[in-house]
């Protein structure tokens, strides 16, 4: 039996106002939606291209964030080395920087005339901006910190005695990671991945600054909304609805599985 805890009235009122703050934009969107036209709008080339790009790029960005972010988080949580706190600040920087700033930094580093981009281009002919890889890189840069921060915190809170026990049972370092550490931080890891994906999915400022804006190649859903807003508001609202539905769907789908307290 769970005991109901009663909150003071002031708390309830403030919470209600907060809730309204979240609900109002959604209500505005729903009332403005051109419901009869929505199916047509949503199957137009612009929207389908943007949807495809958004899904592909956000999923790749999430995968890359996991691939590099998990090891980074493990190092930050467990390894002792000089400059660790500086490194952590660096990793968390994209969380506080305006995305446009991140995009500009990417342009000057990885752009065709960028510090690294130029030699890369000369050596391999690879151009990162104006391609889907530009989108992926921009999304990964702004989203990975979410994964790192979640995993680092989870690993720090892990009691080392379990990994110690696994070691005495014969598990090597890699096996301990795979069979004990990662499963034990499972819920946090999943929440982190979800957050990371959501950030990547909604990324705008860095994308438009670094990757540019071209339908079918770099125009993700947020960019499509921005452009549509100026010429065809109905399309803008329709795309916004798509994004809201997808985001809500993912949140609802994963809510019970991963956020149930152990």
């Amino acid at each position, binding site marked *: 039996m769970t005991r109901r805890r009663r909150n003071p009235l002031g708390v309830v009122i403030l919470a209600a106002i907060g809730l309204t703050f979240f609900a109002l934009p959604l209500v505005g969107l729903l009332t403005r939606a051109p419901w009869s036209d929505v199916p047509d709008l949503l199957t137009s080339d612009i929207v389908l291209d943007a949807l495809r790009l958004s899904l592909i790029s956000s999923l790749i960005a999430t995968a890359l964030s996991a691939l590099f972010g998990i090891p980074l988080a493990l190092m930050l949580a467990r390894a002792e080395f000089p400059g660790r706190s500086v490194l952590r600040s660096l990793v968390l920087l994209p969380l506080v920087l305006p995305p446009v700033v991140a995009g500009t930094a990417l*342009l*000057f580093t990885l*752009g065709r*005339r960028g510090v690294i981009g130029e030699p890369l281009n000369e050596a391999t002919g690879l151009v990162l901006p104006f391609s889907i890889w530009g989108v992926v890189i921009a999304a990964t840069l702004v989203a990975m910190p979410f994964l790192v921060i979640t995993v680092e915190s989870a690993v720090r809170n892990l009691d080392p005695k379990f990994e110690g026990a696994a070691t005495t049972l014969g598990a090597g370092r890699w096996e301990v990671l795979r069979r004990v550490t990662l499963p034990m931080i499972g819920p946090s890891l999943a929440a982190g991945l979800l957050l990371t994906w959501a950030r990547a999915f909604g990324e705008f400022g860095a994308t*438009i600054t670094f990757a540019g*804006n*071209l339908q079918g190649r*770099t*125009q993700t859903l947020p960019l499509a909304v921005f452009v549509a807003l*100026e010429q065809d508001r109905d399309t803008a609202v329709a795309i916004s609805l798509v994004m809201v539905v997808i985001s809500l769907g993912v949140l609802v789908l994963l809510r019970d599985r991963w956020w149930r307290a152990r």
Partner: protein
Amino acid sequence: MVSAASSLTDAFGDIEQAFEAANPGVDILLNMAGSSLLREQILGGAPVDVFASANPMVMQTVIDAGLADGSATFAGNRLQIGVPVGNPANVAGIEDFADETLLIGLCAEVVPCGALARDILLEAGIEPAIDTSEPDVRSLLTKLEAGELDAGIVYVTDVIASEEVIGIEIPDALDPVTEYLIAVVADAPNPTGAGDFVAFVLSPEGRQILTAHGFTAP
């Protein structure tokens, strides 16, 4: 608050200074963006006093919506091909816009600069290999300046304002010119001030500032 097309950024910056010097106590807030976005803001009820658009059709929509009584043409501009200084990709003319190997940028279609550019290309019978449609002319300019793009179509005023972009002429036959209109917005928070500002822009002094930046007289 003055909402003005982003291609007017530098010119209107000087006009702001001159106006505020002549009218102490008045503070101008400049809101620069693509003309179509500015239009959306006004249609959405933003508290704008003056609207300066780079596209007659955009202004017309605002007038049709009853949010402006009329407008005056106050300047003209011309489109040019912008390339990074030194022309690293050896762009010769408008024909090169069909070259897939070049990185080419245009303004987004919804923005006057982009609409006009596409008209020009259509007129010239060229199918452009675009790599990006920037939301406004200033961001296009930034990428050209950085050398990240090989060529783009921008305003001559932008080319003049930038030290890192040089211009290549577009033949007159393709009609690369555009008009700028200015109007007082209905329900302006400060109608008197708005009127004064418009008058200033249309005055000889205002005109002088505009031509100094490369705009043509109306």
